[in-house]
């Protein structure tokens, strides 16, 4: 076709947000029209009401499109060696048919991202994460006999979370296949459909993985089975409340992925984020090992902690003080927990606060009372356990609700 100067040429790549295969369903369900971008895809922040969506996570069951996650497949004779070079924990301890949480660092021991590792076989892994990671994976795999494949647009994902999640799966015909799945188990339940007992809510829940083209049918199948189980589609805002209650950290929120941070000193190590148990110094070399060894000897510079915060006003972004005077850190994620019925937060403190010094800590909260600002200093208490835990999250076979 002849070129015409008058007809604008389309861009070689899509401009603006692009839909995932589930957009037709989400579009039809959306009353709030609260769309946002996630890795370039359209994602719902809220579908109709964040409060009711949140409670569906803790009381019924919810569906959330996680297709925009970045997914990479690592295969080949050296796949395990590549994984162990990459992540700080020992990948050999993630069994076949299991999923493991992991972090990976640069050579300074600063976290590039965190994510989940799915182990399909002896030498077959998938890495699921927030940030694009292809270049780093290829760099890490240099010299190893392994293949790295970007599956981000080949594999779609659905997160099915809530106390009736198992009942719904049973009604959708997956009951026998998932009844025996323990937390972090993974199985191919039907050709092309993988289900892992994983999630970001701290409650009973599963993630379902299939080809990009099959996910709409999978959504419909789950939706059709959801009537008796209170199924509700949700947006990211409700999920965020649940993940803070469960004490899970989020990249870009509770820590800054070091590859994306321009300012110096913004990176944080797994030790600083409270994940010393995720660092295995005995497994051989891995990216950042030397720096982390030095840090372990010296002690971390920061402590990411869980906080119970006084009063009833959420403390997101609040500055933290020691003895009401000295500024020692800030809240990275703060919410009113609708289930724990208290103010909770994740917060970063400068060492030794949060480490050796745990008492006499205060949060400075600014509250807008219909146009008038009020400043409050409220006591905070460091907690070891997640704000939400429930035995139904671990029961196998799972409860009906």
């Amino acid at each position, binding site marked *: 076709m002849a070129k015409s100067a008058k007809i604008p040429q389309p861009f070689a790549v899509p401009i603006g947000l692009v839909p995932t295969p589930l957009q037709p369903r989400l579009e039809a369900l959306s009353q709030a029209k609260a769309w946002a971008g996630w890795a370039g895809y359209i994602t719902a922040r809220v579908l109709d*009401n964040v409060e009711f969506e949140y409670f569906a996570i803790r009381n019924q069951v919810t569906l959330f499109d996680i297709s925009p996650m970045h997914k990479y497949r690592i295969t080949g004779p050296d796949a395990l060696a590549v994984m162990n070079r990459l992540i700080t924990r020992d990948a050999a301890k993630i069994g076949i048919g299991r999923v493991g949480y992991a972090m990976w660092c640069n050579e300074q021991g600063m976290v590039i991202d965190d994510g989940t590792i799915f182990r399909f076989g002896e030498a077959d892994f998938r890495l699921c994460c927030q940030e694009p990671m292809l270049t780093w994976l290829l760099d890490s795999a240099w010299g190893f006999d392994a293949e790295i494949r970007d599956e981000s647009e080949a594999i779609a994902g659905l997160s099915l979370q809530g106390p009736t999640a198992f009942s719904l799966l049973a009604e959708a015909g997956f009951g026998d296949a998932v009844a025996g799945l323990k937390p972090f188990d993974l199985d191919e339940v039907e050709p092309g459909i993988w289900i892992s007992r994983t999630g970001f809510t701290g409650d009973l829940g599963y993630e379902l993985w299939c080809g990009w083209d099959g996910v709409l049918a999978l959504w419909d199948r789950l939706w059709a089975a959801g009537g008796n189980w209170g199924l509700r589609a949700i947006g990211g805002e409700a999920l965020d409340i649940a993940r803070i209650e469960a004490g899970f950290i989020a990249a870009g929120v509770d820590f800054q992925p070091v590859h994306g941070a321009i300012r110096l000193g913004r990176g944080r190590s797994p030790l600083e984020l409270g994940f010393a148990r995720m660092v295995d110094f005995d497994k051989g070399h891995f990216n950042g090992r030397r720096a982390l060894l030095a840090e372990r000897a010296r002690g971390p510079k920061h402590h990411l902690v869980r906080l119970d915060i006084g009063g009833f006003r959420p403390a997101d972004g609040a500055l933290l003080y020691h003895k009401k005077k000295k500024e020692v850190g800030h809240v990275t994620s703060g919410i009113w927990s609708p289930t724990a*019925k208290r103010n909770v937060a994740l917060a970063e403190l400068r060492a030794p606060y949060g480490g050796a010094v745990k008492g006499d800590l205060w949060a400075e909260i600014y509250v807008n009372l219909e146009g008038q600002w009020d400043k409050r200093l409220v006591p905070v208490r460091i907690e070891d356990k997640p704000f939400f835990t429930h035995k139904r999250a671990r029961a196998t076979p799972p409860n009906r*609700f």
Partner: protein
Amino acid sequence: MGQHDTYDAIIAGAGHNGLTTACYLARAGLKVLVVEKNDWIGGAAVSRSLHEGWTYSNCSYVCSLLRREIVRDLELPRFGLQVIPYEGGATFTRDGDYFAYLSDHDALRREISRHSARDADAYTRFSQTVIRQCRFIRPFLLRNAPDPTSLRPRDLQEMLYLGRKAHGLGAHELNETLRFWTMSIGDFLDEHFESDLIKAHLAGSGIIGTGLGVYSPGTAYVLLHHYMGDVDGSIGAWGFARGGMGAITKALGDSFTEADGTIVTGAGVEKFLVQDGRVTGVALDNGDEYRAGIVGSNMDVKRTFLKHTDRAALPDDFVTAVERFKIRGSSGKLNIALDALPDFPAAPKGAPFLRGDLHCSTTLDELERAYDDWKDGRWSSEPYFDMLIPSQIDPTMAPPGKHMMTVFVQYAPYDLNVGGVRSADNWDDIQRKAFADAVFDKIEQCCPDIRRHVVHAEIRSPWDIENEVGLTEGNIFQGELTFDQLLFNRPVPGYASYDMPIRGMYLVGSSAHPGGGVMAAPGANAAREILRGLGRRRAMPDHREPLGAEA
């Protein structure tokens, strides 16, 4: 355990207030015993299974007023309490229309406009007034009622607090407040709205649990009482306790036993034991006796002092005042197991408001006539009801695809008039069934196939509620919430600080300030008074809001 064990404190009645007091005392290190006449704990906050597969919230059925400070202090979420908000509600008309109370602000404005363009913005002003009044009164819930007749330093302190709060309102708002506390909900709604249907929808909160009509003075306050709660800061919102209202008392019970408290069920208090003007313990109806220098009664004030205390141990004027205490039964309850979700032909398919509270009373006149029937000792021929199907949200209440429906019915008399004779004894199975039929007839206004879906129904008259739960005349608030029985007049003048004329004896239930509604505030306030009496005021958190502060 022997039958003469000695405790630091005994609480009679394992309702939510009794358990709240018990929890606070046990956490303060006291050795505490709770005795309960039923084989289960919970009082009027219970979940029971009367038909296999279904769980009913047999008495109270929704939750909002439970004080968040108490939930936090006693760590109720750790003991499994989950409060789930529900979405809106609706009033159905006879001609196939409805007014939907929608949770989305703009959608609600559109829905109101559909019935009356003039009323759309009126709702904003209505809410402003109600919430402003709620905010004024809420700080008084977790502190002693100010008593202008007392010269005790702590009462003077409370009066000063009230005086300053009231002064802070300014003349205009103070006038509004006094009007609000004394006027009728009907008059208040007439001032704001023109649509009969909208008025009728909003009026329900003014009469629930109360032996008054929508045009009786004092009902505006009852509405306020129902709006004082919140779910996660959303003022006026209501929710379900996951697993039914018994989840609240189960969590309280577990919190109590974890703090080394002891609960004895299946044996009620026969007598509060008194010696030389001091309480010494309780004698149970199974013959057991327990000793303690502190005894709290979770029973209502009438039952406590007129049925289970020696009259000789009490001052005459006190007994007279207790006898006069108004605690009239005005409501009944149907708990229904359904084999499927019944159809509401007027509602759009899958309408979210069906998950809220549903009603069929369409005008204030109709509500007032319903009250007239009650005055005659009959249940309302066109009853008001507050109907919900919690199993749409809570998967634990019914088998999959089946549902549980709770129908709170107003009005139903305690002393039923049959052939001119008014007596609670008239409530037999025939009358109970006739009462249920009147309710089902009314439900058919919005849900014509309801009867076809009924698998099992528990029908509760005021007499049944009294008999099982122990609430005198089946009054759900342990005494009416009218101004003559509120604040320093609750339960009776001179005894608004939880301590009773018998030394060591406390009233810990909703007959005391600030009244009923599953707030647990009386229980917490009573615990504070008990600990103060022991010189251990600091053994529980102080939730008294300083003047000028806002939570």
